[in-house]
């Protein structure tokens, strides 16, 4: 039997208020396992401001700061500034925001945090719509998906526009580390968290976060669906460190996207033509990743020289 690489310590408690099968709940659980207790998480208005349970209880074994929906990037810049001013250098500063709070209303704040080179980890948990308010489309909703504001009726075929490429936007800021993570691959997930924890500078996670009520599938299928998302090339797993891209889950052949789409009510209306488009996009995405991995396989010149006196990488001790 393989040795378990995931820390046993639980910093997210049972009794949380997530729906059964909630992807964002798994994302937080694995994130905190990788980060350890010396962590403060800043959370905007989102599913997670509710999942953490109402006053006077909390579902987290670490400090949590609530912030306005568009302000997570600025919030973690403030936490880091205070931590540095108060000599709390080993504190893990984390922003944990949804796709709406990140790719839509919080994009300016995220960009500011990345550009300022804030020494913090920003996590976007992507459930691909405004789920806390009841499934309204966000810029991260996939093309064609049904939501309550992109109905499927008459001529209307769900969301018209393609999903916003948040990783491309983030990578244009040259973070020290950016990665895609999926709770269906816990070893890969926790390894990336531990890797990011030991670094200094702006770090970003794009986390696949399945939503049974919003995506219209059975809540016991979350893990299987997540595996399909990666195996079909819909949500490939990779990391980019100082410009070097590395695929962390390699597939010889992509699984058919039909398996992923058919499992979810939000895609139920798809015609064969619409399925074909998703398949082509997944293949193109995968080919592009392979090409980028090859192109950056030799260490690229460091794009930005750290300023004189920049702090050394943080020691990797958990506590």
């Amino acid at each position, binding site marked *: 039997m393989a040795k378990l690489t995931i820390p046993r310590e639980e910093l997210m408690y049972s009794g949380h208020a997530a729906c059964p099968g909630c992807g964002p709940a798994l994302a937080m659980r694995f994130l905190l396992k990788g980060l350890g207790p010396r962590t403060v998480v800043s959370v905007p208005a989102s599913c997670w401001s509710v999942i953490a349970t109402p*006053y006077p209880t909390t579902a987290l074994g670490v400090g949590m*700061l*609530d912030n306005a929906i568009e*302000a997570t990037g600025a919030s*973690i*810049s403030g936490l880091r500034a205070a931590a540095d*001013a108060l000599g709390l250098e080993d504190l893990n500063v984390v922003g944990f925001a949804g796709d709406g709070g990140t790719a839509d209303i919080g994009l300016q704040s995220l960009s500011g945090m990345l550009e300022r080179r804030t020494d913090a980890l920003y996590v976007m948990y992507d459930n691909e719509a405004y789920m806390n308010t009841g499934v309204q489309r966000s810029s991260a909703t996939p093309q064609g998906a049904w939501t309550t504001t992109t109905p499927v009726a008459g001529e209307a075929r769900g969301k018209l526009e393609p999903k916003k490429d948040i990783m491309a936007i983030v990578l244009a800021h040259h973070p020290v580390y950016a990665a895609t993570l999926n709770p269906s691959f816990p070893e890969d997930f926790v390894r990336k968290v531990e890797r990011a924890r030991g670094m200094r500078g702006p770090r970003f996670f794009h986390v696949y976060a399945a939503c049974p009520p919003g995506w219209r599938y059975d809540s016991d299928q979350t893990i299987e669906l997540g595996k399909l998302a990666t195996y079909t090339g819909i949500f490939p797993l990779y990391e980019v460190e100082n410009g070097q891209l590395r695929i962390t889950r390699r597939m010889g052949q992509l699984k058919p996207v039909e398996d992923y789409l058919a499992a979810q009510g939000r895609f139920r209306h798809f015609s064969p033509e619409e399925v074909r488009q998703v398949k082509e996009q997944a293949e193109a995405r995968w080919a592009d990743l392979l090409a980028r991995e090859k192109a950056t396989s030799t260490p690229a010149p460091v794009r930005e020289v750290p300023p004189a006196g920049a702090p050394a990488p943080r020691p990797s001790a958990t506590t």
Partner: protein
Amino acid sequence: MGFKVLSGNGAQAEAARLARVQVIAAYPITPQTTIVEALADMVASGELKAQYVKVESEHSALQVCLSAAALGARTYSATSSQGLLLMHELLHWASGQRTPMVLGVVNRAVAPPWNIGADHADTMSQRDTGWIQFYPESNQEVLDTVLTAYRLVEDPEIRLPAMVTEDAFYLSHTFEPVDVPDPKVVDTFLPPKDARAILRPGVVSRLGSFTGPDHYVDFRHQVAEAMDRVLPKLQEVESEYARRSGRDLGGPLVGYRTEDADAVLLTLGTISTTARGVVDELRSSGQKVGMAKLRVFRPFPVEAVRALARDVSRLGVLDRSFTFGSSGPAASEVRSALYGVPSPPSVTSFLAGIGGRDVGPKDLHRVFQALLSSRSTGPRWMDLETDGGVVVHG
């Protein structure tokens, strides 16, 4: 330390330095910009040991300070006009999360049309956000008020945010000698911030949270109770500051020659200095008038206004902004404070200095003559009237 020649903005920066703020976040906006430039120089030269976060908006500036304060840091930011309006949402967060913080605000007109002159519409629009509001009259008062504000807001019984305003250009860009206290004096008066923050590494905690109606009302009521403790606490803090610095700030409402006055004019900010001179002139010609400077607008000093009104038959309130559909904001507060008191004075709302219009002695003579000759409630827009009563535009 002795005197330095400082602008109002220089006084803000000097006070932040003396307060040994630990985290600064700011975004430039006229006429606030020279505050954050001065702080940048202080941090760059090592004169001030602080983390300076250069943000991409005022909204982010305030969020940086909110989150930094949540971990226990003493923070400073400054803004003006549109920048303060952009912060509006987070102003509520600051009081709701019981964040002890100080914000410098250079009072500037709100667009459209664009105008960078002195006007109180920006801060008056934040009346209901749970912030303490100070309206100093001089650069000296700006410096002294920022220092006392830190001491006040960090008191465990208060834990509310405060904004210290200055009239655009009349203070922000006007230089005058300012007695800068010795850092040792300030360190004794304002010790390092109590590090007992709610968020601490390794501690299970949550700041913000959400609640249903069961607890929400308690949170709001606690803010209200803290606000009620501000004026008594301010008296203690100002007394101690007076002992250490030799300067008495005078509390929330500072009267001048109000004894036996037939008419008293309430003012905010820089117009107060001019009004004091005009009171002297009118007194020397036998007219029994006085003035009172409203230094603190939130919490509103109801008792002080009632005490002032006891022996006065006519009160004028001069506002540098207007609440559309009502009157000057201070005038409506004064009326509200006086409701139900026996034989209250008449209260006339005057508007002057809107959008940076100069309010000189001649203008205030007209205000006093209007006040002495009529018990009209107003509002009277003095900027639109000439001596002959002809309305002029522009």
